[in-house]
């Protein structure tokens, strides 16, 4: 088995508080890893760092052998926008300077405009080079990681409260043709065909999560447990490779919890990789192949569930004695 996610010496400080303090661990492909530890141990912060929502103060994370920071460099769309804007701005200045300042005619003005535009685009490209070459520069573009197949859920659920439950799910799939503005006008047929598929997929997911009866309800009207389910369904709709789940079954009723655990195991057998933060010991011990225990921002121990339950240090710091 290969290690799909390697975390090394990860650090994050908030003012005086050290939330993550040199955590080092690895996550095996096609496994379920449990991440446990006392409140405030730094589990959610670790997730934020791995999923790109926050920038680390030290350490590295590798996803399939590639540094996260490299994966999070600006997308092509973003580069086009900034480069284009620099070219337009500098070109306009060049053109005006040519005509009004240097007294050139239309042709000369077009010349200075082109020179200005070239300089503008060149300046943008140059400063991007310099920025990327700087030692230890960080990025925060979580969407780039999601596109690569590394997704997360939020511990405090975040749903699109004003949109329907169905729409919440239909937003998730990657690379929908209709997300491109030009396609909404020119490729309506393609868009509608895809949309029908996505809707079907979303309905299946709702059925699995037992949310089908509220599919047209606004997500803001859901109960706490239903929100957790929606959160889970949304990332599953992406069909990612590695899924970070932050307390996915907190507040979900026991029978549905069991069903979701079965589902997660099936997905694991199909090759998905999970890393799950969970305080429910029965769930996490039954589900996980490996357990990582965090305490005060660092990894305390790592091992199989049986060994962890016996571990003195873990019992002291987290599990307590019955």
């Amino acid at each position, binding site marked *: 088995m290969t290690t799909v996610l390697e975390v090394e010496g990860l650090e994050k400080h908030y003012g005086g508080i050290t939330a993550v303090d040199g955590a080092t661990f690895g996550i095996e492909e096609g496994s379920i890893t449990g991440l446990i530890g006392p409140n405030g141990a730094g589990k959610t912060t670790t997730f934020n760092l791995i999923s790109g929502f926050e920038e680390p103060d030290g350490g590295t994370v590798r996803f399939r052998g590639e540094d996260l920071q490299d994966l999070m460099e600006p997308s092509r769309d973003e580069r086009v926008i*900034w480069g284009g804007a620099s070219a337009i701005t500098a070109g306009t200045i060049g053109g005006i300077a040519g005509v009004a300042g240097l007294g050139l005619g239309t042709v000369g003005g077009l010349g200075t405009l082109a020179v200005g535009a070239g300089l503008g685009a060149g300046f943008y490209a140059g400063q991007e080079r310099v920025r990327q070459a700087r030692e230890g520069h960080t990025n925060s573009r*979580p*969407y780039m990681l999601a596109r690569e197949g590394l997704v997360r859920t939020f511990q405090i659920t975040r749903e699109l409260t*004003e949109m*329907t439950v169905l729409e919440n799910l239909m937003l998730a799939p990657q690379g929908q043709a209709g997300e491109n503005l030009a396609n909404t006008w020119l490729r*309506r047929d393609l868009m509608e065909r895809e*949309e029908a598929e996505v809707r079907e997929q979303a309905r299946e997911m709702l059925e699995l999560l037992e949310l089908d009866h509220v599919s047209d309800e606004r997500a803001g009207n859901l109960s706490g447990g239903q929100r957790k389910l929606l959160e889970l369904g949304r990332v599953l709709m992406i069909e990612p490779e590695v899924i970070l789940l932050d307390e996915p079954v907190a507040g979900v009723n026991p029978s549905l919890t069991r069903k979701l655990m079965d589902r997660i195991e099936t997905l694991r057998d199909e090759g998905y990789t999970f890393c799950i933060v969970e305080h429910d010991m029965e769930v996490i011990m039954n589900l996980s192949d490996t357990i990582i225990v965090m305490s005060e921002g660092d990894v305390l121990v790592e091992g199989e569930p049986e060994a962890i339950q016996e571990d003195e240090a873990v019992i002291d710091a987290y599990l307590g004695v019955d």
Partner: protein
Amino acid sequence: MAVSDVVVSFALLVAIYGVLSLGLNVKFGHTGLLDFGHVGFFLVGAYTSALFVLPPDDPADFTNYVIGFGEIPLVGTWAFGIIVATILTGVIGGLVALPTIRLREDYLAITLLGISVIFQRVVQSESWLANGPDALRGYSPPFQGLFPIEPGTLVGAVAFSVVVFVVWAVATAALSLQRENDSRLPLDRIYAVTTFGLGTRAAGVLGSRFAVAGVAGLIAAVISAALLLAASLVLLVGALVSVYGWLVVLVAIGQHYADLDRRELALGVGFGTGLLVALLPLPIADRISVSIVGTLALLGALVYAYYHAITSYEWVADVKLTVVGLGAVWFVGIWYVLLPILGPLGSGSLSGVLGTLFRNVVWFLQFGSSAGIGYSIAVIGDVTVQLDYSRFQLALFLLSLGALYTVLEAAVQSPFGRVLRAIRNDEAVVKSLGKDPFVYKVQSMVIGSALGGFAGAMWAMYSQGLTFRTGAPETTFIALLIVFVGGVGNNKGVLLGAVLYWGFQQATTQLAGFFPPALRVNVLAFRLVVVGVLFLIVLYYMPDGLLGREEYSSGVGDS
């Protein structure tokens, strides 16, 4: 001015502000980007298009401006000017977005407001750019030279038929929608006639009812052009088109209020009549103090009665908006049909009554100006008719509004629109799902600003003269009011909001006519206060606007 002319100028303003507010709705309603500087794009669009059609600047006179492509063929036309204005404002919107878009909502709003004020200041103080603080004039709206049309000429016939086309197509499309849920009237047969037999069968071949409506409009346009060229039948065609328009409007109103029971109807009519009665002191009382106090007292009584009714009777509360809507329809009907004939009725002239009625019914044509074709009609007497330029402009504006609305709806009723609405809800979710909010926000700013620029070009045509006041911040807030009243993020609601806002403006302008000239200015200024108060009431009682947020069938048809 005939009442129909008032309605036409009202519709022109609705079209301009409709486009402007649709633009703001993309930014604010759909994406959540609060742009207090939306008017900046309106200003740039207006000036850009005007500068393109103006002739080259004459250094000898007192005006100064740049560009002036008016004499270059193609480049100096309105069509080209509008396209440039739209693209330019779109690009500027995108550029402005880049440094500001990461700001939180309120900071973003203030920054954009600042940028729009800079635009306005540049226009105002750079006298070489667009005549500085003085008005920019000297251009005329497109095709105005063709009017009043010459019936015997080809150009005149074509100009006339363009207007016929738009009115006929719009009315036919509306009729085809009404036909489906009304079995009491012989709408099917009327539809078959007005589509020239294309009717329902052609819908399959042509694709949709809108295509059928377009083809029917085309046929009607060709026929009327022929009638005009061969026989100068201006009045006949005008009357036919007018009657068709009325039919569709009346059926639409009838259908909208089809399920009313008798007491709701009575309440609505009572409300409208009450409004009329409340305004009666204005024309009747001689002393201005008496008329104002009387009107205000009666208005207060009406509002109190309404409030009392909706708070004490449950069935009234259920239909509270219906009552107001019905009352407004009743009131407008009386204003349009009954009030103009009161004068001739008083002097007992039957031909005067019929003549006024006739002029207002045949809204498609303008009567009584010096130029035009003379007709002699039984009882009514002699009339001169012509197709006024304002009708033609109305056709152009409605066509633009309809086209832009359709294009915009296609863009937001899609996964693209879904991402925009998701950004308004929670950006972090959008990011966690692999979509870059930045890219979408920039696109939203580009589309919204381009619509603002287009509306600016329409304004340049309508007003035929621009000053830096075109970019006054009030305009943004009017657009925002329109968005809020109709329904944030609801394009149909935005159109409704534009109708309501300009309806209010027109009504108060008419009312101000009853005041002595010295007071009139104060009355017109005071209505800003009234608008503000109404805005607060709407926000308080209906935070989602009259139509509310749109329920999206998650992109495309749910089937």
